[in-house]
């Protein structure tokens, strides 16, 4: 009960709402694992110092306590005043890396020994320039909505006695598109290899200096008609690719989406204009990164 409330409080306090410079109230500091051993050590030396009336042992104990106090400050300084900025991939794909990039900034280039902990993973990162970024890679296993697990950034510098930490809770949810799955042979005619047929060109236009030599129409050149360039236009190009959910050769919803993904990928790679038709959504023909992301999001959401 109390734990739940604490987690809720953490979520509230550390939810990511945009570029953030870590202030006092955003950095937590407490004794860490072996720090407790150190604490026990302080206690034992204290008792020994008292019992043997040995001022130097007591002094040793006090010095160790003072170092512990300073550790709190130094650990805190590792995180304090760092400016964080998180950039997340707009849409991911099953079994492909989904990147969360944390941009770090500090006023002066002092070394910061940071650890990023997320999803049972732990990665160390030495932040020693004014601006650096750290990439967290997730590999989503499921299509659909994806929420980035809480990211903990902590530092146990200098002696590992004390840990200073902060969280980044990304509250937005992100979408994961299905994994592309190659189509079986019989449905190959839906795809387009993108290899232009060398003789079937649509028209000729005059040669420009940046044109490839391969596409020069040597036939015309041989006839002395001048340098022309063949403008290819294969079958699919003329009619933009329409990828339709209902036509996918599978009965399974997920598999259908995977096939669609495969086709979308191919079109995207060959820069063929394409559109998709889903049971409840439909897009215009389009091409380019924005269009691709839009399509992926639709596939992820359906």
């Amino acid at each position, binding site marked *: 009960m109390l734990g739940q409330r604490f987690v809720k409080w953490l979520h509230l306090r550390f939810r990511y709402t945009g570029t953030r*410079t870590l202030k006092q109230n955003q950095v937590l500091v407490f004794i860490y694992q*072996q720090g407790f051993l150190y604490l026990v050590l302080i206690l034992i030396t204290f008792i020994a110092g008292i019992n043997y009336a040995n*001022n130097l042992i007591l002094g040793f104990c006090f010095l*160790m306590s003072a170092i512990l106090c300073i550790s709190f*400050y130094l650990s805190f300084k590792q995180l304090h005043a760092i400016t964080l900025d998180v950039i997340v991939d707009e849409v991911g794909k099953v079994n492909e890396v989904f990147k969360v990039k944390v941009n770090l900034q500090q006023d002066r280039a002092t070394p910061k*020994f940071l650890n990023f902990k997320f999803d049972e993973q732990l990665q160390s990162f030495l932040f020693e320039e004014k601006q650096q970024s750290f990439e967290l890679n997730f590999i989503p296993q499921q299509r659909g909505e994806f929420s980035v697990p809480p990211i903990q950034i902590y530092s146990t510098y200098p*002696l590992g*006695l004390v840990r200073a930490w902060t969280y980044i809770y990304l509250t937005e949810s992100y979408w994961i598109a299905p994994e592309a799955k190659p189509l079986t042979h019989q449905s190959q005619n839906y795809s387009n290899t993108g290899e232009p047929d060398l003789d079937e060109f649509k028209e000729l236009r005059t040669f420009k200096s940046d044109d490839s030599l391969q596409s020069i129409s040597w036939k015309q050149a041989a006839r002395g008609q001048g340098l022309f360039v063949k403008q290819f236009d294969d079958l699919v190009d003329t009619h933009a690719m329409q990828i339709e959910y209902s036509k996918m050769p599978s009965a399974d919803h997920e598999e259908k989406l995977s096939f669609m993904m495969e086709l979308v990928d191919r079109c995207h790679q060959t820069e063929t204009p394409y559109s998709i038709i889903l049971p409840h959504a439909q897009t215009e023909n389009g091409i380019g990164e924005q269009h691709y992301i839009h399509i992926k999001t639709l596939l992820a959401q359906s």
Partner: protein
Amino acid sequence: MNKSIQTSILVVLSLIWLVQLAYMPIALSILFLINIMTLALYYDKTNKHQVYKLPRLFTQIPKLVFALLALLIIYFDSRTFLGVEAGTAVLSTFLFAKALETKSKRDFIILFNFALFVSASLFLHSQAFWMALLVLCCLISCLVGLYRVQIVNFEIDQPIFQSFKTDSIHILKFITLALPFFVLLFMFFPRLPPLWQIPIPNNKAVTGLSDRMSPGDIAELSQSSALAFRIIGNMKQLPNRNELYWRAMVLDRYDGTTWTSEFANKQVKAYSKIAGHLDGFHYQYLASDPSQQWITGLEKSIPIEQRFELHQDWSITPKRLVQRTQPIELQWVGSQVRDIQDAHFEQMMLKNNLSYPKKNDLQAQKFALNLYQQSQSNHEAYIQNVLNWYKKENFVYTLAPGRLGNNRIDEFLFQSRQGFCEHYASSFVLLMRYVGIPARVVTGYQGGELSPDGQSWEVRQLDAHAWAEVYQHGQWQRIDPTAIIAPTRIDRGMQNVMNDDRSIFGDAGYSNLRFQHSSLLRTLRVWSDYAGFQWQSKVVGYDAEKQSDWMKKLGLTSAYSYGLVLIFGILGLLLIYWGVTQFWRIRQMSGLERIIAQFNHQLSVVDQKAEAETFQQWMQRLALRAEQKHLFEQVNQIFQKIVYLGNENQQDIQNIKKLLKECTNALKVKK
């Protein structure tokens, strides 16, 4: 495993080994050394990938053998595992055994923490300044180890020596930061009484006094220049140097070779048995070896504290053997006081002080009786005649008198005629006893020197002395035959005698001793003892009393004041740290940054620069709030020029300063 951590482990272990060298059985030291060397070899092999995977059993056995062997050595040496010496040895054994099985990060951290504890325990052996320095080195190396465990994942490639240096500098920086807190805690943290009884270290006192004396057995007296004790008090009240007899104990039983003390001397003397003027000068006695059991107060002194008792022979000892680092309060009652003894006890004492081995030293016995007759059996005349005889017969004071045989009094008085205080005291006492005058030997120290700051009196081991006491007119009276033979020894002190009169070293190859007493070394020694004394009294002996003195100086006397001082002290320190960091932050800013920070500070919260805002955006936002929009535009232009073209000249800085002032005004007008 990382190389830098390995070196840290080796350094820590070596340091601890080095410090313990003086206190551990030799066998154990050798075993530990083997441990360190094996570890070094193993690390070297693993780094070169030359280690073969052995079955677990083979790797376990050496550790077990090591631990068992070490524990056996400790047990054979001290017959126990408890107590200070054995206890610290056992702790170190565990540390070295743990070092043999460190693999994971957690192991390293535990090892270094444990090493910290072992380092602290080293203070049980000695609280001297050099020990503090060595323990500080141990502390630093442990912290360097802990530090490296933390940063090893962020490998910054550096050669081993270089990285050790930079890491040590980091750690020293941390310690410097922690130092003010440490001083505060040390000064004002209440000193609590012991929570439970603990075994005290059974140091075998190596220097100082012995409870026996056998003059003819020592061919050459090796004089140690170590400090024996120090007297703190009003130095003006001390008697003259030739009256400074520091009394340890009475030796009154002689078996022909050795003087020992009768048990009766050790009986407790009640203060009610002392007659005469009892109030006198108070002083403090600080033994340099805290485990020394004899307190050699100024003849005659009585202890003020309950923990010490006075014996029949005016010797003072602690009731319970304790290691005391604090000075002991004593009161000098002078030699005018008298003992009131019951008749029976007195008879027994006098009888003891008349006995001598009848069969030995017949020549001396005959000589004594003759001289006694010549003195018309008058005690005082006889004593005077004996002393005159010593003087007339050219007896020599030397530290290298050679050995004497079975009839040693005869040999000394009629053949060798050279010796040091013990020879004179011993022969004099026997010459008294032969004719029926009760006499006894007293040991202790004589003389001493003022410390460099004139605040205390130093007595060294070489000031050790023996003199005689003769029973006359119902009282024991001090007679020092050495004063007749070597008056400078008593008047000017042993140190000066050694400096001036080289003949006392004898003609033996005493060059080492002579060197030891050269004046440069003497000065050095005096100063190092003085530093040791300051360390002892200011740091080691800093106790509840001194603490409350400090509190009184601060004007605080309540019981809560310690807590208050600590809390406010820590808050004050934090404030200072904060101030200093702010100061540095501002110092590190460029001129431009400072001006902008100042400007930003003057604005109301809404107008201040937001985190995600660029300078340009900020200026544009401000411009919307003021009439003279061009001002902000200008500021931005100059700013861009300075920052992006990278030419920061005074002209621009002054311009922007002026403009920002106008901007502030413009924003004010708007409100």
